[in-house]
């Protein structure tokens, strides 16, 4: 960029900023700092509209001025995804944090995008209900961020992922349109299912301003059990036995760590009588493997993988695989880590989604991530490199684009023709 263009661009910025201040108030247009960097790219300004109308207008003005916008909720997962090709304005949903309507008797809730998961769950619990989802960092993570990153945990086995829980959405598009799709009722087939399109889209199609979810009752009682397996083979047998049984477990995860024997955790929810019967059934299925009652804390294993002492020598990936081949996939990881002298730890859900942490030399981390991605993709799975250490030459976050990439680009083109939203963060350069 030559000096003239640069100064021109700065001018655009200052007048643009001034206009936004006049529109929203000075306090809500703040300069960005290094802590606001998006995957290493530092934006210039943080804008916090008070409502979705303001948000849509800020987005429209940015689009018109050719300013790249990164939507931000709690900022807990802002490092996920490829570094943006441009990032000038952070559009914060912090002030959109209301729970608009908890229609508890209808088991639905309408909630603003900036509301945290924790605040939502606390409100729902007043009526004995929950959003049946266990995403990462619920105290900070917001509805909009969790939806955009499609973050789900162990409860997905029973209740499905976000795509199965969301029933309505409102999106702000770069041209200033506020568009709603879905509705406030659980059963509804009128029009296209745009809630699903926005889920997992990483803020590249529109900014989520509101969502409606179906809810589930909080369980009357719940109990967790852990079974220690002596080998991956025994672990696979046990998981298959439970999955193929008539147990109505809510969650099932397997925990792995290099050098340790795998453990399988099972969560039951329901009536006391039901839990008792299921425990007995589980003990029969486990055969000789020891079954112990476990603390509910084991369900935080996935989040614990994100606490590591040396951020410069760790990588974290989301993996997806065919659930029945869990042992083979874990052996693949063990082998790939071993030859590169990497330490590893993983938690894998019975749904076939897992989280893997590798630790060691940065170059070897890169090697292993690429090697594993290739092997997972060959078996219809995937590896998404969510966290890569700063010292490692980065790899694409997403991997294989599949044959639908041109169609995805065409959807992006339709909704965000000027590539204003989160440019370059998503799959295939979207």
């Amino acid at each position, binding site marked *: 960029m030559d000096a003239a263009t640069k100064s021109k661009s700065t001018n655009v910025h200052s007048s643009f900023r001034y206009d936004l201040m006049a529109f929203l108030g000075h306090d809500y247009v703040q300069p960005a700092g290094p802590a606001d960097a998006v995957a290493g790219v530092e934006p210039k300004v943080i804008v916090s509209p008070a409502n979705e109308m303001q948000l849509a207008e800020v987005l429209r003005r940015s689009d018109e001025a050719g300013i790249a916008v990164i939507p931000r909720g709690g900022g807990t997962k802002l490092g996920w995804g490829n570094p943006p090709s441009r990032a000038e304005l952070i559009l914060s949903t912090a002030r959109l944090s209301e729970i608009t309507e908890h*229609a508890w008797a209808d088991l639905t809730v309408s909630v603003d995008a900036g509301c945290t998961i924790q605040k939502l769950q606390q409100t729902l619990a007043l009526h004995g209900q929950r959003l049946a989802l266990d995403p990462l960092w619920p105290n900070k993570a917001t509805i909009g961020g969790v939806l955009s990153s499609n973050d789900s945990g162990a409860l997905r086995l029973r209740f499905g992922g976000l795509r199965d829980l969301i029933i309505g959405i409102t999106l702000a598009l770069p041209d200033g349109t506020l568009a709603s799709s879905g509705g406030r009722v659980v059963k509804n087939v009128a029009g296209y299912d745009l809630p699903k399109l926005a889920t997992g889209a990483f803020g590249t199609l529109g900014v989520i301003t509101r969502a409606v979810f179906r809810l589930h009752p909080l369980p009357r009682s719940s109990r967790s059990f852990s079974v220690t397996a002596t080998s991956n083979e025994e672990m696979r047998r046990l998981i298959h036995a439970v999955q193929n049984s008539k147990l109505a477990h809510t969650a099932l995860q397997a925990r792995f760590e290099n050098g340790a024997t795998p453990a399988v955790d099972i969560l039951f929810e329901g009536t006391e009588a039901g839990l008792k019967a299921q425990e007995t059934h589980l003990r029969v299925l486990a055969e000789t493997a020891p079954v112990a009652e476990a603390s509910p804390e084991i369900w935080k294993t996935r989040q614990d993988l994100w606490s590591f002492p040396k951020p410069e020598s760790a990588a974290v990936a989301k993996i997806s695989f065919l659930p029945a081949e869990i042992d083979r996939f874990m052996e693949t990881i063990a082998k790939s880590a071993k030859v590169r002298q990497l330490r590893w730890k993983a938690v894998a859900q019975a749904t*076939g989604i897992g989280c893997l942490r590798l630790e060691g030399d940065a170059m070897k981390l890169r090697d292993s991530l690429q090697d594993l991605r290739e092997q997972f993709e060959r078996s219809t799975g995937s590896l998404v490199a969510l966290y890569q250490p700063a010292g490692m030459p980065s790899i694409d976050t997403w991997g294989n684009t*599949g044959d639908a990439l041109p169609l995805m680009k065409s959807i992006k083109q339709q909704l965000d023709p000027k590539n204003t939203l989160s440019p370059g963060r998503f799959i295939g350069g979207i």
Partner: protein
Amino acid sequence: MEARTLDELRAIVDGRGLITSPEELHTYECDGLTNFRVMPRAVLLPTSTGQVQAIVRICHHEKIPFVARGSGTGLSGGALPVENGIVISLARMNRILEVDFPNARAVVEPGVINLDVTARILHNEYFYAPDPSSQSICSIGGNVAENSGGAHCLKYGFTTTHVLGLEVVLPDGTLVHFGGKALDTPGYDLAGVFVGSEGTLGIATKITLRIVKRPECVRTLLAAFPSTNEAGAAVSGIIAAGMLPAAIEMMDNLAIQAAEAAVHANYPNCGGLLLVELDGPLAEVECLMTDVNEICRSNGASEIRQAQSDAERALVWKGRKAAFAAMGRISPNYIVQDGVIPRTALPKVMNEIVRLSTEAGLRVANVFHAGDGNLHPLVLYDRRITGQEEAAEALSSNILELCIAAGGSITGEHGVGEDKKKMMSKMFAEPDLMTMQRVRNAFDPFQLSNPTKIFPTPRLCGEKPGEYTPHPSESAGLAERF
């Protein structure tokens, strides 16, 4: 369409796969909603993905609109042909390609009949969960287009929950793959957008389904209440007690009478009948069934019965599932409506339906999926009486407006299709519809794939909401629909 184009199409599917004679084309001029009829120019019956692609490429090149069709059981005119267009029937692509029990997946072609999936996996104690009442005749491809539900979707979810991957021929003939056997394929959730798009985004040629282990036990209870208000209060009680039954169905007195006349389900004669089904581990279900009993009793149930055998359970369901077709026993003509309300609005909406029905001087029978607020009011009339048909159509539309006003939806499972296009702008604002259109443009810029459906256009002469006509196999007692 030029003769040359027809020859090209014939060359793709061989003689058996092309229908052009007017007598044979009649079969395809409508779907389950028979008041809309359009004669297609030709019907093609491909047997492979390659053939579908070849046909669609010609359509794209010649700008010929096409409509994909499964079994033709839809109730919103979704498979209604387009003037001067062709119909692509997927009926001959009916193979179950793979059953993968360890991963609980099945891969099928679009023409596979819904119930045949379950039939294939039952021996291993698995089933395919979405159960539209037409499941013995409707196809998986049609289910994908309509995002079909069924009585048990309260607990198990709709078709979209159970479709993990799709092979799709886009409207320009390109073959693409969405999702797959493993979850969360990186990229946009295009399978999520495609399911329920009513054939407007392309043609699914292969579908990867999730299959589900059968529960340890199933218990079905019938409870008779003085009116639907008390029955509705019991449903609220069940939900408030933190239960998620597999199904909760409700029928009013007129619907009960019709079902009794048709299949002798041995229902109690009452003002509001509730059918509650629980499934899961035996100890759990028995404990909860005691609670359901108590809730029904405390809300004024005069009679509570539990089906004592599989045969009894099947009979209970037969009565419920035959309710639509059964209306023919008590009325010469009727319109089936499909609306959704927040469940708690039920008493208010019911009172309004009674008021509207009295004003119009027409009877309305009510069948509900009470757990999720999906109403199926059946407006009864006699075409031979001057003015009744128009009055019935107006009443049916007014009921739908009640649903929108209550914060609900114009369709819970039948789809928008041709039938409810005009209602879309009452439920959605212009920017909402425009955004959907933009998504459609990404898939189908030339608007060739089922182009006239879902989105509102100025109303045409002769367009009117539709009377229910039983499917031939329904009349023969071979199948039922909701």
